Every structure is written in structure tokens, then in C-alpha cells.
């Protein structure tokens, strides 16, 4: 109550501010800046000693300290993940970027070989064009294979950087620079802004020509990247291209056009004049799902940061991509949100920073359990994953051991998964599917027992596996079916993937030896029996040998899956590294205002937690929030609500007794009704005022459409059902 009054008071004081379009609430206090610099200084101090020293002070100090540690750990982990994602995305397109770069330089050479214009001509302020061929613009059409422009923004920014680093002048433009509203002058102005770094009042391309004539800029190709061709206004873009082609001799401009649909797109967008000036060349980027796989591999499977997500979260990420949004950006965003949630919800998460500091292959920590405060230690030992399968005496030692074990099994898990992915790559099994399946602890239990029974009987392996579902089994099956050459390559890649994990690598090497013996046998036979190959008995023998090898490889990967692919969520202390709260993530990533605002109104008692409104939630009670009553009443109407009826039922609800409600229905005349039911306490004006405010509030929430001139007595409902 007090705070509401205070709020009222504040409202009165802020009345002036409330009616200002904007105002400054306060300026930054210097306090934070000092605190910041303190934090920066602290960063240099060794993590373990700082935990120890600072956590002994007081509770609040301790909490603050831990929060700081978590903040720092978050910064480290996220910056690592961010750079890994960036690298993964750049690397996957690197070959295309190089190809584009080669084309740019070749085209530039072609342009310059047409003959350099004389200096006097370059500096004159009108274009010079001698023949038709010199009017042509070299244009790279980059097929993004992706309708989501948002995912390609970063790709084109990277491409721009790549070309810049190879000596080009680059400007990235987007469809908003080619809008019909601003016309050609708008697009030229943005182009000039990108190169000249200033906004000019006059959109004149000759400014760019004289900029290019300057000694520092001359002699390098000028590349204009237009990110989303299909979204540009066709006429503006055509004018732009015609304009550039007029200047083609003075300004060696190359166009790079991002095309989301098909190679025909320029024909649909551009005018025929402009189309004649375009000398196209096709490039193809990697598909979104390939890009996604590379992100998942780099960030979550290769475990770059120590941070992991649980199976449900992984499935949510997968669904984000496959069903909901279809963009990589949404996945990256969800991943970042998961990291934030993990660090803000899990007090022990700061340990992750220690994990990050360690060398990749050496499973060691830069912190020691002795430095952990008592409260944190007991929290760690209370974690459900630890209490469920207790390993030994609960002490700091066990936590450290547990975490080491966790990291170790994580490494094994990820290398088996990558081995499977190596198989899947050639058979359209996506890493994302394998990843989600490999994280599933329930599936792991059943799979382990399935594999156990079939792997014991070595001869039966493949047949039994043949009938099992799921991507993992599918991958195992593919091993059995692969050709000897593919199998050989596969074993090589397995060997590389199991680097540092002796238990796997030895078995792989063993198989590799066998395959090499087989290979040499094959070569010998092929040399001698090349003509009789089809009928020879030797050949069938060889085939059987090869198949035996395939069976052994399938058995190997099967046993690897069974023995080493333990999902993280089955291992003690995984909560420290693994984020699992999918509900929280989902509600923060995609708000659902349409459903939730309605639910607020229909179930207001759940939030207000009052004792008066809970009795019967189906019928509106007079004690409920006015707008809640009104919205509950609105549910009984069709798509149109008669204002008069609505008002009357609101009035009846407020006036409480059911008897009077009955009487209301019987007496249609408003005057009679008024005299019959209205109690003294609620006068007409205040009731009407409350009605008005409730309607106004529903209008603010957008749940009502106001009366039109055609239907002055009705409002329209907008939402139907939650």
C-alpha cells in the first residue's frame, strides 16, 4: 500500500516527465566506473587465491565476490564461444571466399587491361565511355541457398573483411539502401558514405571517382557487395547499375550480389538495360544446415569452453532451427542465453573459467578444491547427480576427482560422436541429430543394453543393428555397408579423432593394420587376376574378407558407443558445467505475449495470490481486477461484443448478488434496472468510469477493436482462446 502511495506521489512529481516525449532519468554515476577499474585490477590476481581470500569476509561480500567471479567466467566463456563460432562460420566458407577473391583480381586485371584513362580524363567530372564492352560490370552472384537474410549478414561482413585484407576497397550495402523512398540518390549517398566516410549533401558519383583518383586509393579493385538482391527495389537497383556502368572505365567497380533464390533472380529484379551491363559469375555458399553442423561441432561437441547443454536444451535448439525460426542466428542467440542463464543460476559455474584456462588435451584444472569456500563445497556435494550415485567420502577431493572424470568422459563422448559423424557426413546423417540422440540419457540406457546383447555374439552384430532405429544405429549400419576405400578413409579419420584417447585409438589402429593387409592382398590379386576378376573364386574370398573387416569396424564403433558414449547428464557433478533448464530458456527466447497477457487477465488470482478471488475461478467475482472481470465476461460473447450488454453484465458482476443478476435479465428497461439493483455504494459515474477504464486497458493490450462507424454499439474481439 505504502509503495503505491509513494508511486502516486512520484507520479505527481513526474507528471511533467510523463508527458515529455523523452527525458534523462539520471546520468552515469562515477561509482561504477571506479568499481569497474577495481574489477579490472582484480582480474590479474590468481583466481584461486582471490576466491579464498575474498570469500571469507562477510555474506554479502561473499555474494558480491562470487557474482564478480561468475561475471568474469561468463565473459571468458562467451568470448571463447563467440570467437569459435565466428571462426567456424568463416572457415566453412573460406574456399568460396578465396574463389571470389581470385575472381575479383582477375576481373580487375581485365578492366585495367582495357587501358588506363588519362589523368585529365579521370579528373574530369563526367563519365567517359568509349565502347559497349567497357560499360559492362563484373558481377559475382553469390547463391546463399538460404531464405533467411539475417544469417547471411555475417557471411557478407566476413566476405567484406576477407576482400579488404586482400587489398580491395569494399562497401557492404543492403536492400534498405535501395528503397523506392530514397531512390537512386539514397543508394549513391550510402555508397559514398561507405567509401568516403562522410555524408555528402549532393549525391554525385564523381566524388567517388575523384576519391579513387587519390594516390592511396588508386590501383585497387572497388567491390560493392549488395547483400540481398531480391529485397531491393528493382528500378532503383537498375538505375544504380546503369549509373555505375557509365563510370566503369574511371571506377573499376565490381558487384557482388547475394542471391537467396535461384540464379534467375537478377532477371526478375533488374530491367533489361541494366541486365545487359551485368557480366555474371556464379558462386555458391554452404547450406545453412552444413553451417549449423559446423557450429555445433565446434562449440558443443568439441567442447571448446567446458560449457555444455542438456538433452532437452539441445532438442530445443534443434527445434528452433528446424521448426520454429529456421535461422542460425536464433540458435546462436539461444546458446548465448543458455550461457547467461547458467552463469546467473548456478553458483558453482565460475569453476568453468578454471576449465577454460587448461590446455586442451591435458585434463587438469587451474584451481584446487582447497580454495573453494565451505558453502560452495557443500553445495557441490548436494548436487542431485552426486547424491544419486555417491562415489565415496564427500569431500573436496571427490569433487575434484569427479570433475576430472567428467571432463575425461566428455572427451571420450565427443570423440565417439565425431567418429559417428564422420560416417554420417557421407550419408546425410546430420550432426545435430546424432548430437541430440547422444545426449539422451534414457536412450543411452536402452541402447547400452541392446548393444550389449547383440555385441556379445559377434557374428550377429550387423543384422541385429540393422533393425534398430535412430541416427546412431543408422550410422553404425552405414559402417557395415561402406566400400573398402571409404572404410579405409574412415579408419584414418577415426584414428585422428581418437588422438590422446589410447583406449580407442589402439583398437582403431588394430583395424587399420588389418585393412592395410587386406589392401595389399587386393592389390596383388588385382595385378594377377585382373582379367578373371568377375568369375574368380579368389574375388569372392576377397569380398568376404572385406565384409569381415566391415563387420569388425561396425562392432568397434558399436562397442565404442556402448562403452564410452555416456551422456553428460548421467555423470556426477555435471550440473556445474551443463545447462538444463529448458523452460526458462524458452520463455526468455520467445515471449508469448498473445497467450500470456490473456492468461494474466483470466487467471489474475494466480499472480495476485489474494484470498478473495480464488473461490470459483470460472465465474468472475466482484473482488477481481476490473479488467479481468471484463475480459472474463467478454469470453461469453461471439466475435462482436455489444457494449450495452457488456456494461450491464459488468454492472451485475460488480453489484454482486446473483438474485439481482436474474432480475437484470428479466427487466430490459434501463431505468427500471437501475432503480432495482444498484446499491447505494456504487454510483453510476464510478461504475461507468471503471467500465471505461477496463475497456481502455483492453484496448491498450490490443485485445479489443474499438467500435467502427458502421457498428457503433459493438467492439470486436481479437483473440480467441489462449
Amino acid at each position, binding site marked *: 500500500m505504502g509503495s503505491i502511495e509513494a508511486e502516486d506521489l512520484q507520479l505527481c512529481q513526474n507528471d511533467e516527465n510523463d508527458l515529455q516525449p523523452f527525458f534523462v532519468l539520471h546520468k552515469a554515476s562515477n561509482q561504477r566506473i571506479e568499481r569497474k577499474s577495481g574489477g579490472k585490477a582484480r582480474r590479474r590476481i590468481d583466481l584461486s587465491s582471490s576466491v579464498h581470500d575474498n570469500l571469507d569476509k562477510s555474506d554479502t561480500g561473499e555474494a558480491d565476490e562470487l557474482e564478480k567471479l561468475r561475471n568474469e567466467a561468463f565473459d571468458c566463456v562467451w568470448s571463447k564461444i563467440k570467437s569459435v563460432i565466428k571462426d567456424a562460420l568463416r572457415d566453412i566458407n573460406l574456399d568460396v571466399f578465396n574463389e571470389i577473391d581470385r575472381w575479383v583480381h582477375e576481373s580487375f586485371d581485365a578492366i585495367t587491361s582495357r587501358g588506363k584513362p588519362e589523368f585529365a580524363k579521370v579528373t574530369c567530372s563526367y563519365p567517359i565511355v568509349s565502347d559497349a564492352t567497357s560499360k559492362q560490370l563484373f558481377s559475382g552472384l553469390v547463391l546463399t541457398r538460404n531464405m533467411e537474410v539475417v544469417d547471411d549478414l555475417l557471411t557478407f561482413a566476413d566476405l567484406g573483411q576477407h576482400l579488404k585484407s586482400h587489398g580491395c576497397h569494399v562497401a557492404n550495402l543492403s536492400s534498405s539502401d535501395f528503397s523506392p523512398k530514397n531512390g537512386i540518390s539514397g543508394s549513391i549517398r550510402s555508397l559514398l558514405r561507405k567509401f568516403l566516410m562522410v555524408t555528402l549533401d549532393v549525391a554525385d558519383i564523381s566524388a567517388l571517382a575523384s576519391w579513387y583518383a587519390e594516390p592511396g586509393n588508386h590501383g585497387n579493385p572497388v567491390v560493392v557487395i549488395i547483400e540481398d538482391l531480391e529485397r531491393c527495389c528493382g528500378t532503383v537497383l537498375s538505375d544504380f547499375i546503369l549509373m555505375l556502368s557509365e563510370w566503369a572505365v574511371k571506377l573499376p567497380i565490381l558487384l557482388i550480389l547475394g542471391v537467396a533464390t535461384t540464379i534467375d533472380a537478377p532477371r526478375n529484379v533488374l530491367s533489361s538495360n541494366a541486365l545487359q551491363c551485368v557480366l555474371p559469375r556464379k558462386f555458391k555458399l554452404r547450406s545453412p544446415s552444413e553451417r549449423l553442423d559446423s557450429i555445433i561441432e565446434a562449440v558443443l561437441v568439441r567442447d571448446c569452453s567446458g560449457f555444455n547443454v542438456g538433452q532437452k536444451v539441445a532438442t530445443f535448439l534443434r527445434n528452433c532451427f528446424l521448426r520454429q525460426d529456421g535461422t542460425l542466428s536464433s540458435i546462436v542467440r539461444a546458446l548465448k542465453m543458455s550461457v547467461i542463464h547458467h552463469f546467473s543460476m548456478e553458483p558453482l559455474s565460475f569453476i568453468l573459467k578454471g576449465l577454460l584456462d587448461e590446455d586442451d588435451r591435458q585434463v587438469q584444472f587451474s584451481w584446487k578444491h582447497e580454495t573453494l569456500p565451505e558453502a560452495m563445497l557443500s553445495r557441490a556435494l548436494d548436487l542431485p547427480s552426486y547424491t544419486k550415485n555417491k562415489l565415496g567420502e564427500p569431500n573436496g577431493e571427490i569433487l575434484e576427482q569427479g570433475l576430472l572424470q567428467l571432463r575425461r568422459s566428455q572427451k571420450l563422448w565427443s570423440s565417439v560422436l565425431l567418429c559417428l559423424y564422420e560416417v554420417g557426413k557421407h550419408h546425410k546423417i546430420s550432426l545435430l541429430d546424432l548430437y541430440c540422440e547422444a545426449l539422451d540419457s534414457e536412450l543411452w540406457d536402452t541402447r547400452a543394453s541392446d548393444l550389449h546383447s547383440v555385441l556379445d555374439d559377434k557374428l550377429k552384430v550387423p543384422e541385429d543393428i540393422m533393425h534398430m532405429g535412430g541416427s546412431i544405429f543408422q550410422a553404425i549400419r552405414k559402417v557395415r555397408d561402406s566400400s573398402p576405400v571409404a572404410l579405409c578413409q574412415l579408419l584414418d579419420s577415426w584414428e585422428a579423432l581418437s588422438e590422446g584417447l589410447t583406449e580407442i585409438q589402439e583398437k582403431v589402429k588394430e583395424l587399420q593394420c588389418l585393412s592395410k593387409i587386406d589392401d595389399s592382398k587386393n592389390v596383388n590379386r588385382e595385378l594377377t587376376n585382373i582379367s578373371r576378376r568377375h568369375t574368380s573364386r579368389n574375388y569372392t574370398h576377397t569380398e568376404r574378407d572385406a565384409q569381415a573387416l566391415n563387420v569388425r569396424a561396425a562392432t568397434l564403433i558399436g562397442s565404442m558407443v556402448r562403452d564410452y558414449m555416456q551422456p553428460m547428464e548421467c555423470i556426477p557433478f555435471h550440473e556445474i558445467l551443463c545447462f538444463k533448464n529448458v523452460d526458462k530458456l524458452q520463455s526468455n527466447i520467445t515471449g508469448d505475449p498473445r497467450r500470456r497477457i490473456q492468461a494474466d487477465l483470466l487467471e489474475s488470482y494466480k499472480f495476485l495470490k489474494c484470498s478473495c478471488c480464488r473461490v470459483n475461478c470460472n465465474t468472475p467475482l466482484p473482488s477481481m481486477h476490473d479488467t479481468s472481470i471484463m475480459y472474463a465476461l467478454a469470453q461469453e460473447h461471439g466475435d462482436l461484443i455489444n*457494449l450495452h450488454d457488456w456494461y450491464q453484465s459488468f454492472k451485475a458482476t460488480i453489484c454482486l448478488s446473483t438474485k439481482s443478476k436474474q432480475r437484470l435479465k428479466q427487466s430490459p428497461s434501463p431505468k427500471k434496472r437501475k432503480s432495482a439493483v444498484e446499491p447505494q455504494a456504487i454510483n453510476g*459515474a464510478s461504475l461507468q468510469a471503471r467500465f471505461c477504464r477496463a475497456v481502455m486497458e483492453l484496448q491498450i493490450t490490443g485485445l479489443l477493436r474499438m467500435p467502427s462507424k458502421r457498428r457503433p454499439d459493438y467492439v470486436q474481439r481479437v483473440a480467441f482462446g489462449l
Partner: protein
Amino acid sequence: MESTDFDEGDFEFSRNYFLAKESSTSVKRSTHKLSDIDIVDEQELREAVSNIEPKHEKEIDLLIKSYKCLYSKWAFELRAGFGLLLYGFGSKKALIEDFASTTLTGYSVLVINGYLQLINLKQVLITLCELLGDQLKAQRKTPSGSQRSYNALSIDDLIAFLDGPHVDGNECSICVVIHNIDGPGLRDSDSQQYLARIAACSHVRMVASIDNVNAPLLWDKKMVHTQFNWCWHHVPTFSPYKVEGTFYPLILAHGGTTQTVKTATIVLQSLTPNAQSVFKVLAEHQLAHPDDEGFPVNNLYSTCRERFLVSSQVTLNSHLTEFKDHELVKFRKNSDGQDCLYIPLTTEALEKVIEEISQ
């Protein structure tokens, strides 16, 4: 499994919609008029609105206080580069300003009242740049002395300044608080594009609230994922929309015929007696022939001339223009193709108007 859930949800929604549609057509629609309610005078109504007794004050207070424990988490998310988007029923103005003034002390905070009708975003940008300029100067990262004038810069330049690089890890940010980013003053796509560009600036953090259930339709994927980067928080407060509702008309004061009667009367009373009489001629015809499409203009002229109300077509036209400007009459063609005049009021309302001006 999940896809079937989704389909069911979808099905449920469409089912509800058609049920609602059906019930409105099959059951006879109520023909009650808003004017049947004995509406009090607008002045009195406005006064009553401002004096409405609050319900559940204690619970609302507790509810809002319960969000205080989230402040540090919000600040963490803000720091990490997300924008905060608060939604849920009830005014969130006080909540956000409380959050900003207690937790975001390290940021300069600028508040935009999106519920107002007109907001000049260029002015907002200039103020933001001034704030940032002061802040940078306070940290002695820019040479002190010359005060930059931001007024002369273009919007692109202003945004470029806000998007400047951070000097060696030194976090220097301004927080923009927007009440009702879906409000009438900001609802157009240009404003949203500018806001998105501001939100994407390296020196800017954004906290905003929405109230409309359809607010997400304002943004495309680029804005959502790369610019605003919203972190959604459901925080219903159930506080009254006091300031936010200031500019919404009261349904009982403007919506029904009463208001039209009132405005029509006021307009007519301000006209000359002759003009009033012309209107009366028209009204009498309409009341006598409620099913007609209107009064043909030629007939009106002859009738008025007969009664010595107008002397020429020009005078009549000037009266009609006056009526038309105040939406007292409208033109339409009747079945013979003649231009007809009619008064867009119901019979009862028209009777009331005639009664009023005849007094």
C-alpha cells in the same frame, strides 16, 4: 509428438475462432444501444475515472516487489548484450523506472515515453550522443575542451557515433528505456527501424516494455535476432495504466451516439439560423422517409427556395460544404443515379438533435 501438440494448439485456436463467429451469427445479435445506458456527463466521468478506488493494492505491491530479486539478473543480461523486453498485463512504467534508478546507476539512462503521440527520434539521438559525449569526457578518453555540437549531424552520423568502438575494454554505455515501444508514437516501421539501429549500437543498452498482444509483429527477424536481441520477461503488474491511457478516448464519452448528438448540436448551434433551418429540412425528410437513400440535392434546393431559406444554389452549396466538413451530412447516389444527401445519424439521435436545436 511435439508437432502434434503444435497442430492441436493450432486447431484449438481456429476452432475457437469459428465457434465465436458462429455464436455471433446463429444467436440473434443483441440490438441494445449504447445510448440506452444513462451515461453521465463527460466531465463527471473523467473525474470519476481519476478517482477510481484501487483494488488489491497490497497484492499488487507485493507482486511488484517480488520482481526486485530479478533486478541483478536483468542487469547481467543487459550487460551481456541482450535487450530487456518486459511484457504482461499492467503498467510497467514504475517498475522499469525503479529498476533503472536502483540497479542501472552505472549507466546514463534516457527514458522515452512511447505512449505519447509524437516522438522525435532525431532529438532523442542528439540527447543520447550528448550523454555519451559527457560520459566519454568524464573518463578523459576524448580531449576535453571543445564541446561537440550534435545538432548539425545527420541521423547516420549520430548512430555511427553511438556505435563507436569501446576503448580498451572500458565499458561506457547508455541505457535507453522505452515505455511502450509498441505505442502510437513509435508504431510505424521507420521509427522501429531507427530504434533497432540504436539498439544495435555498441554503446547502447535497451530496456523496453510492450502491452499490445501483437507487438512482435513490428519486428522482422533481422531486428529480433541481430539488433534488438530481446530477452523476454513476463512481468504482469496489474497496476493501472494511468499515464499510458491518458490519450485513449473513454468509450462512454466518445464512442456512442450521445457524443455524436452532442457534437452535432454544438456545431449546428454555431451556424446561422438559416443554415440550421436547411439542416432541419433535410432532417425532416430523413425522419419522414427513413428507408430512402437520401434527399436529392435538386429537390433540397427547391424546397429551401420555397421556404426562403436560400436565394441561390451558391448559398445552399456553402451551407452544404459547412455540413460536410463537420460530417453532418454525406453524399451518396440513389438508384436513379441522382446525388443524394443524408445525415449519418440514427433516427433517435437525429430526433434528439432536432429537439436540441429547436429549443
